[in-house]
Each structure stands twice: as structure tokens, then as C-alpha cells.
């Protein structure tokens, strides 16, 4: 809106509130304080319009506040976690294909499986060279830190409390090394064997667990790592929060995290030490992220199956992919019970005559729909 045009329309004697509300510059002035000089000048040269301007701006602000209050509360962080995890997942394309292109989707899955298999064969040809031992990790770390080592040779789990309040439950035949005092920028520990971590949140100091060839990085969360020196795999199970797992290279790349996995609750990452491939799956028994309380909807009467799936997604924090159009015609009555995800899926799939499988830490429902 140029000044000339503004003064022309605005000096008109018949100027009314609708004119002001229809003026872009006026709206920007009231909401964003743009064009302020222009409007102050306008008020100075048209003192008679002061009342009109005040009334119009009050309407703008009233409507602005009303709309502000109307914004539904969505969990922005959770939605971001979902977006990030989808964006980072290696089977990204799988999610994006539309349901009608099912054949294409299946081909992609098949191609992915073949690719992973091929990588595995290729990688086993050059094994041990790449293995990183606990001892090596420690020698690397000792340069800057005085480390304390705890070993659990008994039969019971051993509980350790670190200086930041983090609690670690060390499994048997496992050992953990940690500095007496953490560094300013990060908290690093070294694990051989099996341990459950309950990490105190500290966004300014990420918590890093080095175990064999993997690094698990968190800000604050609980998870379990299994990394025995003589075993084939390293696994990370996430109970709460978000964890990123990546391979540790001998030569530190710029940002190894970009090639890693982001794990959410009920997901586990498995690193195969031979093939050096990191894979994301659901844990064997996905459990509700938070206990099902009475406030959550668990009882459904005559609703589309998709609605039940949406609720299950929320309870278990697991993505369910299905053909929405087909399944919205399946009207079912059921209840979600406080038990394993798979028990609930079994019941629903029996009702709608479908099957499900887990692909890349997501559930894919296959059903012909209901008529």
C-alpha cells in the first residue's frame, strides 16, 4: 500500500470501519506495527478520524485474540518427533506412497530386503578388522579423563548412581566405565555387556554411551543397551524419550549422527557387527507409553476401524499404516486393553478380516476392507 493511495482513500469523508478493515496497511499496522509512521501521520492530519481508527483497531484486536484462543492445543514436540522420525527413516519412500499403489510399495520393501541382504554378504567378507573393543574405547578415552570402572560379576543386577543423578542398572557379566566428573559439554560412559539407563535430562550436556561399535546419544530418557563383546549384535531398547544410535567410525566423520537411527519408545535398534547395518524394529512386546488411564478413550462402539487405530497409535507411540479409505468403512466395536500392542491388533484384525505385519518399526495393516 503506497502512501499516496492511502491518503487518497482515507481522507474521504464517507470513510467507514469496513474501509479500514479492508485496508491491508491498516491491518499490518494494528497487528505488526508496520507502516506506523504512515498511520501516525494520518491521525495527525485527520484528527476527526481518531475515533473511527480506534474502533476499527479494537475490532481487529478482538478478532485476533478470539482466533488466538480458538487454536487447538496440539503437542508440537510430539508431532515434530513423528515428523523427524519419518523423515529420517530409511524406508522413507514406503510411507509416502499412496495406498492405491500397493504393488509398488511391496516392490520397494522387497528391494529394501534384497539390498540389506546384499550389504550383509558384502560386509561379512571384511569382518574383524572393524571391530571395536571395550579396551580400545577406554584407551582412547583415558587421554583426557580419570575413569572409574564397575564390574558386575554377581548374579543380581547392580545399581550405579552417577554424579548427575543418572541411574544405571548393570546386568551380570557387564562392566561400565565413567569419569569421576563429566566434561562440561557431554557426559560419556563406556559399556561392555548389558545395562538399563535412566538418564537425567540435561539438554546442554548430551549423554553418550559407547558400546562396541555403536554410540547411543540421548538428552534424558530411559533405555537399555545390550553389547557383549562376543555377541553378534548390539541392541538398544527405548522405554521413554528419544534416543539416537549411530555407528562409531574409526575415523570420526563430520556428523556421524546423520547416518544413524532415531529411536522412539517401543522401538529398538539393532546393530549387526558383521554387516555393520543398523536396523530399526519394534520391541518384542510394545507396551503403552503411559498406563492407560480412565481419561483416555479405550472403549469404542460402532466406530470406523481407523479411529481405533488412531487411538492405538497414540497409546503405544507406534505408527500404523493402512488404507484409510477402505478401513473407514469397517465399523467395529471393541476396547483397547492394557496389554501388549499385538494382542490388541490381533483382536481388531480378526474383526475386520485383515492381517498386520511390522515393517521398519511401523505396523502395516493389510485388509480388503468391509462392505
Amino acid at each position, binding site marked *: 500500500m503506497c502512501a499516496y493511495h492511502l491518503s487518497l482513500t482515507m481522507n474521504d469523508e464517507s470513510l*467507514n*470501519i*469496513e474501509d479500514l*478493515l*479492508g485496508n*491491508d496497511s491498516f*491491518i*499490518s*499496522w*494494528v*497487528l*505488526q*506495527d508496520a507502516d*506506523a509512521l504512515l498511520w501516525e501521520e494520518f491521525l495527525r492530519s485527520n484528527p476527526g478520524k481518531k*475515533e473511527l481508527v*480506534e*474502533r*476499527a*483497531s*479494537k*475490532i*481487529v*484486536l*478482538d*478478532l*485476533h*485474540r*478470539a*482466533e*488466538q*484462543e*480458538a*487454536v*487447538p492445543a*496440539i503437542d*508440537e514436540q510430539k*508431532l*515434530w518427533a*513423528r*515428523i*523427524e522420525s*519419518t*523423515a*529420517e527413516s530409511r524406508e*522413507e519412500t514406503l*510411507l*509416502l506412497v499412496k495406498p492405491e499403489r500397493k504393488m509398488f510399495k511391496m516392490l520397494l520393501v522387497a528391494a529394501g530386503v534384497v539390498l540389506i541382504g546384499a550389504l550383509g554378504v558384502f560386509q561379512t567378507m571384511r569382518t574383524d578388522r572393524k571391530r571395536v573393543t571395550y579396551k580400545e574405547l577406554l584407551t582412547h578415552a583415558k587421554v583426557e579423563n580419570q575413569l572409574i570402572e564397575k564390574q558386575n560379576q554377581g548374579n543380581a543386577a547392580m545399581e550405579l548412581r552417577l554424579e548427575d543423578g543418572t541411574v544405571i542398572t548393570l546386568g551380570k557379566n557387564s562392566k561400565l566405565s565413567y569419569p569421576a566428573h563429566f566434561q562440561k559439554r557431554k557426559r560419556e560412559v563406556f559399556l561392555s555387556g548389558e545395562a538399563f539407563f535412566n538418564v537425567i535430562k540435561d539438554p546442554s550436556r548430551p549423554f553418550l554411551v559407547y558400546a562396541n561399535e555403536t554410540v547411543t546419544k540421548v538428552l534424558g530418557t530411559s533405555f537399555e543397551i545390550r553389547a557383549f563383546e562376543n555377541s553378534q549384535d548390539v541392541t538398544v531398547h527405548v522405554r521413554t524419550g528419544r534416543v539416537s544410535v549411530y555407528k562409531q567410525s574409526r575415523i570420526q566423520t563430520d556428523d556421524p549422527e*546423520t547416518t544413524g537411527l532415531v529411536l522412539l519408545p517401543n522401538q529398538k535398534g539393532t546393530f549387526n557387527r558383521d554387516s555393520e547395518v543398523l536396523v530399526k524394529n519394534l520391541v518384542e512386546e510394545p507396551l503403552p507409553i503411559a498406563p492407560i488411564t480412565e481419561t483416555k478413550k479405550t472403549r469404542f462402539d460402532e466406530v470406523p476401524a481407523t479411529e481405533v487405530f*488412531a487411538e492405538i497409535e497414540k497409546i503405544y507411540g507406534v505408527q500404523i499404516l493402512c488404507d484409510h479409505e477402505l478401513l473407514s468403512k469397517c465399523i467395529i466395536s471393541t476396547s483397547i486393553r492394557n496389554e501388549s500392542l499385538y494382542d490388541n491388533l490381533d483382536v481388531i484384525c480378526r474383526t475386520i478380516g485383515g492381517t498386520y505385519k511390522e515393517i521398519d518399526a511401523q505396523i502395516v495393516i493389510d485388509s480388503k476392507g468391509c462392505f
Partner: protein
Amino acid sequence: MSTFTRAESDLSGELHIWHRFRQGDMQAFQSLYQRHVKSLTSYGHRLTPDRHLLEDAIHDLFIDLWRRKEHLNDADNIRFYLFRALRNRLSRNGRNNVFEQAEDIDGFLDYLVALSSEQQHIDSEGAHARTQRVRHAVESLSDRQKEVINLRFYHGMSLDEISELMGLSKQGVSNLLYKAYAVLRTRLGELTILSLLVPMGEMHAWTL
């Protein structure tokens, strides 16, 4: 004059973030999300009342952006770009009727005729109650009227932008706004005479 500073008015930062995002910078992608998720939620809830559908649409929108980042152009108005993408996404979905629904003339006339009893309390209410009443009145608008009010008065969009976004002529946008004003005026009361008696600072604005 009170102001609402918006993150997205910081244009050079916005373009820088957009640029970094297109090069695959996850952090830039996250800032893009953080800058716009509130606006998208506010606008989106005027397109669908279903919160889950809206969350899914925002999720899909960002995933689509991420997947196509190498092929995206320079966007001089990123918020507009995102709004249009969200609108297209929700209209393709077909589960809501904002897009097919013609203006509901009968309902519109009903509002004009039926004078709400709420308007009599207008003098004694506090700021919060007032906002609630305006909000309530906005809820009584047709879907498209709500959409246009949201874009104009919450997001401060220009008439040109609204016209492009909603696929209407500029005159069409103005007409829609005028109808919305008429309904709101009816719902919020006729205070033309009363306003002459109220001191300037406390005057109620709904005397169009």
C-alpha cells in the same frame, strides 16, 4: 498501538533457514517447523475440526517438503507457501466440506434475524469474557467465513494473498468479509446509541 510480533516477519532469517533446509540441514528443517507450526495449526483448524486429521496433514506436509527439498524453489513468502500446501492437502482428503460447501444463505439469514441475548451483558464484562464472546460469535460463522476471518485478523494476510489462497476474486474475499461482519454485528449487538455515552477509552468496538 499494541503489536503482535511474529517469528515469520523476520524475513532474512527465514530465507536463510529455507536455504539451509533445502540443502538437507535437519536443524533448519526443525526451525522451519517451529516457526510455522502454530500458524499452521491455527489456520488448519479452520479447515478441519478434526485435530488428528490436522496433525496428520501437518506431518504429511512436512514430510513432503523434506522429500522434495532439492526440487523446491526459492520461496519469498514461506508462510503463504505452507498455507497453500496445507489447504491443498486437506481439500484432497475430501473428508471435510469447507471446499464444496456453498455459502449457507438460510443459516446466514437466521443469524441476521435471531438476536442473541448475550449482547445485553456487553458492558460489564472483563477482557477475557469479551474475547470468549467474540470467539463464540466467530464460531457461528460459516466455514468459509471463519477461514477468511482467521486469515485476515489472526494472520494479518493481505486481500491479495487471501484471494489467491482461497481461489476467490478479491471482490469475492471482500464480500465474504462483509457477510462475516454482518453476522458478527448481529451476534455481538447493536451498540450504536450506547457508544455515544461510553467514554472513549472503554468504548466497545462492535458498532460498525
